[in-house]
């Protein structure tokens, strides 16, 4: 529906300028990234910036290009971490795309396909980060960007349970987790871990001060590991908590929680199998969350069993 709208608008305008044919590459338009503005002939051009990270050298060049093509000289920072060059005349698409290609910058996509993945800073520089969200976003962008689906398909990566990249409202979200494990011998009973745990998953023993751990309350943030002065809390394993079927918009849907501790190397398989399930069970124009509501989350978790076994399936598939 969205794509059609853009294309209709484009095909209706005469592709002539000063009597000359204007070349517009419709393959570029179909893959989207060119969004009709309310102003005649003007479009917003959305750039492909996986994880919202851009080399400074490239950013300088993008700024020059934006300055050249934006009739108002403005860029907008989108809610999915992209740069949008506003007020671009459609007649200049070709030359804009060529200029962008020269600096290795691609245009993003709209419509029913896998979108540019978003990601927080993750473990590279955020002290809370447990997974390398930026590397994962880069991988997803390279491997899956533009894959056709029944509707838009948004993937994001958060580095920890604070979930800045909002995996709960993504079609498929990966959130960093760490499983803590405790060594009694080195523990001095200082009680700091019970203070550090914001989930009441650790209570100090009234006499010894040593931790009493409740895995049912633990959200696997790793605060206890970072706080313990004696390294008595250690990371047993890192991985991704997986959420499926979330969306934002007029009718938000909170994602189903389906698996925990999925290792990095299994993330591609999770994406591929999920898209396969969507292909089999979804319908045109239907987000994967809708398909899950219609078909049942058990259908999905059963289909995913072989890959979710690499971590721990969340048995209830609870929302």
């Amino acid at each position, binding site marked *: 529906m969205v794509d059609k709208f853009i294309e209709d608008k484009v095909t209706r305008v005469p592709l002539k300028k000063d009597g000359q044919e204007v070349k517009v590459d419709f393959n570029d338009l179909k893959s989207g990234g060119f969004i009709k503005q309310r102003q005649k002939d003007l479009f917003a051009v959305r750039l492909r910036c996986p994880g919202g990270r851009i080399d400074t050298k490239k950013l300088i060049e993008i700024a020059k290009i934006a300055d050249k093509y934006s009739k108002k000289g403005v860029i907008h920072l989108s809610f999915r971490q992209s740069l949008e060059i506003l007020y671009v005349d459609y007649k200049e698409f070709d030359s804009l795309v060529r200029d962008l290609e020269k600096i290795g910058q691609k245009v993003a996509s709209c419509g029913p396909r896998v979108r540019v993945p978003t990601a927080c800073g993750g473990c590279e520089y955020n*002290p809370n980060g447990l997974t390398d969200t930026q590397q994962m976003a880069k991988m997803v962008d390279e491997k899956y960007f533009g894959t056709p689906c029944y509707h838009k398909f948004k993937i994001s990566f958060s580095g920890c349970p604070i979930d800045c990249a909002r995996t709960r409202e993504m079609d498929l979200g990966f959130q960093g987790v760490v499983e803590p494990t405790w060594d009694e011998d080195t523990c*001095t009973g200082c*009680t*700091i871990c019970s203070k*550090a745990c*914001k989930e009441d998953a650790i209570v100090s023993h009234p006499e010894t001060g040593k931790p009493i751990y409740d895995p049912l309350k633990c959200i696997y943030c790793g*605060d206890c590991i*970072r*706080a313990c*002065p004696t390294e008595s809390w250690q990371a047993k394993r890192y991985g991704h908590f997986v959420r499926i079927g979330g969306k934002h918009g007029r009718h938000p849907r909170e994602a189903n929680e389906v698996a925990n501790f999925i290792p990095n190397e299994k993330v591609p398989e999770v994406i591929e199998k999920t898209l396969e399930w969507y292909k089999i069970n979804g319908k045109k124009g239907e987000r994967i969350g809708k398909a899950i509501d219609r078909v049942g989350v058990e259908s999905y978790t059963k289909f995913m069993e072989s890959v979710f076994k690499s971590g721990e399936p969340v048995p209830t598939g609870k929302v």
Partner: protein
Amino acid sequence: MADIKADASLDLRGILCPINFVKTKLKLETMDVGQVLEVVLDDGEPIQNVPKSIKEEGHKIVEVKKEGEHFRLKIQKR
């Protein structure tokens, strides 16, 4: 366990995050490697956050004592 002798001391009661950590860090910078700084921290956010940050900076917490509503930490500069 015998008390570890402190070379310097900071009372950070009533000082909010992250200023309490910044003060700790600045004090540690004036000290020699191996010396011990004693800090007194409030319960709640300070005790949740400061030990993590001290560890992230590479220092070692060598002693922790709870005294009513606050904690007495000894930190060895690394």
